């Protein structure tokens, strides 16, 4: 279970990018996170993944505190940024192997996995090529395969559907469903409100660093759709 307690962060000591944010993501949750540009979505995702440090508050996952048990915490999660800045001179395969080695995934364990997801995302023929030759979508797929290779307990994704072709988007949604059914948690931000509405079991809406609405998707939405609720709240 991911527990975020009273998380606050400011970049300029004036305006708060995160303002007393508290969230709980349980095993099996497929949690959608929506908000305007600059509302604080990426800041929170980066804080959970250890890229940003909070000014105040705590983040823990399965009893591990991000500041005290940093490496153990990180070994259970995976983060895919909106514009994956991968090592461009490596081939796709070398990059995935690098991440697998970091997480100590054995060759026997990683190989069928890479074949499976590489095949699903239609990336197998391209994994021998340097990442610098990839399109944005191909980099996104490579980052996704690498993020999934160690079967993280918590998957964090920033705008995961941007740049993906329709088939890859469909596959990713299927992967999300199967992962959550297996008890893993997924927390992702998106501007594609229809996807968030249909896919998630929980959502949170963030505005100017504050969570203004959160809960079970069905309960939060009621009779409305997410788009009309979002427009109403913003």
């Amino acid at each position, binding site marked *: 279970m991911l527990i975020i307690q009273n998380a606050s962060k400011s970049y300029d000591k004036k305006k708060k990018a995160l303002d007393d944010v508290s969230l709980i993501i349980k095993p099996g949750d497929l949690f959608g996170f929506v908000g305007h540009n600059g509302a604080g979505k990426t800041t929170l995702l*980066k804080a959970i993944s250890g890229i940003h*440090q909070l000014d105040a508050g705590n983040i823990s996952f399965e009893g591990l505190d991000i500041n005290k048990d940093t490496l153990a915490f990180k070994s259970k999660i995976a983060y895919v940024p909106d514009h994956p*800045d991968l*090592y461009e*001179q*490596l081939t796709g395969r*070398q990059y995935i192997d690098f991440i697998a080695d970091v*997480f100590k995934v054995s060759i026997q364990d990683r190989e069928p996995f890479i074949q499976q997801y590489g095949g699903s995302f239609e990336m197998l023929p391209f994994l021998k090529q340097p990442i*610098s030759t990839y399109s944005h979508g191909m980099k996104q797929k490579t980052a996704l395969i690498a993020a999934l290779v160690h079967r993280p307990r918590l998957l*964090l994704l920033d705008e995961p559907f941007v740049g993906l072709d329709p088939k890859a988007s469909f596959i990713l949604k299927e992967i999300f469903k199967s992962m959550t059914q297996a008890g893993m948690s997924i927390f992702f931000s998106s501007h594609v409100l229809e996807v968030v509405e249909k896919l998630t079991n929980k959502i949170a809406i963030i505005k100017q660093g504050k969570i203004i609405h959160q809960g079970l998707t069905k309960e939060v939405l009621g009779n409305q759709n997410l788009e009309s609720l979002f427009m109403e709240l913003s």
Partner: protein
Amino acid sequence: MYRLLLRTFVRERLSFRRLFGQKIARSKIQSVLMVGVLIYAFGVTSISNIILQYEIAQTLEVVDGLSQMLYQVVGSLSSLGFLFGFFQAQGYLFQYKDFDLLGPLPISQKTIVAAKLSMMLVFVYLFAFIVALPTYGVWWFVSEASILQVFFFVPMAMVAPIPLMLLGSLVSFMLRKLTQRWIHANVLQTIFSVMFIISFTAFNFLSNEILPSSWFSILEPFDVIGDWFVKGVADLNIWFTFMFIGFHLVILFTFISFMSGPLLKINQQRSNLMYKGQDKIPIRSQSVMHHLIQKEWKRFIGTSVYFINTGFGILMLTFLSFVSLFIPSTILEVRQTIIAMGFEPLWLIVAIIGFALSTVYTPAVSLSLEGKNINLLKSLPIQSWTMIQSKIYFNLVLTLPIIVVSTLIGTILFQIEIPTMILLMSMLIMFEILLSVFFMYLNLWFPRFDFHQEVEVVKQSLASLVAVFGGFSFLGALLWLALDFFIGFDLHLRLFLLTLIELVVVVLGGWFLKRKAEAYFQTFSV
């Protein structure tokens, strides 16, 4: 984990594709040619250095001072360490650009710092082959040292650059910290960097006779460490070898232990910038060319490594012109010496200005420095030829004023007549235009947009390497034509003919460049 990271960094930073660009990496013939050019360039530099060091060694051997060469080796390794630390640390060790990738991974910060420092050292080692190893090789040969001494030398040489590399990194970071909150942070950092590098170089070169001895007394404790190196390498003294290696490793591990935490915080807080001195944004409309040249100027003064490396010639000419105004009698003595040697004094002016201009190779790298912006530029309704022109014009804007000023000062001090001065100035201006066109070709042939740090383009790209050597070759050809091929001709006629030849090359080169500009740009992608 350390080995895994280092292997990944080496693959990423030293891959053939990264060093030479995608275009060349795809062509086997071009790859072989480029490796040949590089081997030739490194070979020429190393062999020249070996010859020079051999001459020095013979003199030192007479006075029983061969060990001075080992002091030089450890000094040059340390200086290389400082320079690479200074130029690489920002963006690679501090506020590194792959933090978003490495940050979420379960790798300890100490391992990341150790791997990054090791990678920085790899670059020092590569350049040590040109700078320090020829000196050691000559010492080894002249002093008839044994193979065993090589085994003592290698580990000591590997750790020698560490302390000053760490110092250079910290200085670079401190400069960044001092200036980062100002809106013109990059410009301030460039100015401070130039001042610092000039001071560092001056301190390295000036002898005790020029600077007060008290200035050097602060360095006396470091002589002891140099002694350890010399005694370890020359006398095969195991105790001093261990002392030297141990001292350097203690510094390294202390840095890693104490700095890993602060480094993590620095990287995590990298967006916490609040700029001071927010100026009003002026709203004005100007020509596309004006915008493009202005953009070039801002990048030039805002990128320390770009400014220091390609602006060196301009700084040198400005400095020499200024200083020469205060020593007219010395200049006249030089003039008399040159005349006594049977040469015309103005060719010294050509050699000095030509050398300086060969190092101002902005068109050879400015296109690559666009990086991913090249896609944006290509998408705009601007002709490729206009973009190329802007880069050539920018180089001329930088160099023409100093050509005029330094030629004026040089010819006045050398008592050269006005008609000769005008012809000389025309020839030098045309030479600079020729160089600019040549440099532009280099960047079109060897573009490199996929860099992480500007230093990779400005100092380590193929275009920059060929630019400097090519510029010197053009100068050599010019002097050969003037002092050998056209030797029987009148001085004014020679200057006129040289200007004419340069003009023809520029017109042909420019015409071909204009014709091919669009085709070159079509091949560019990031």
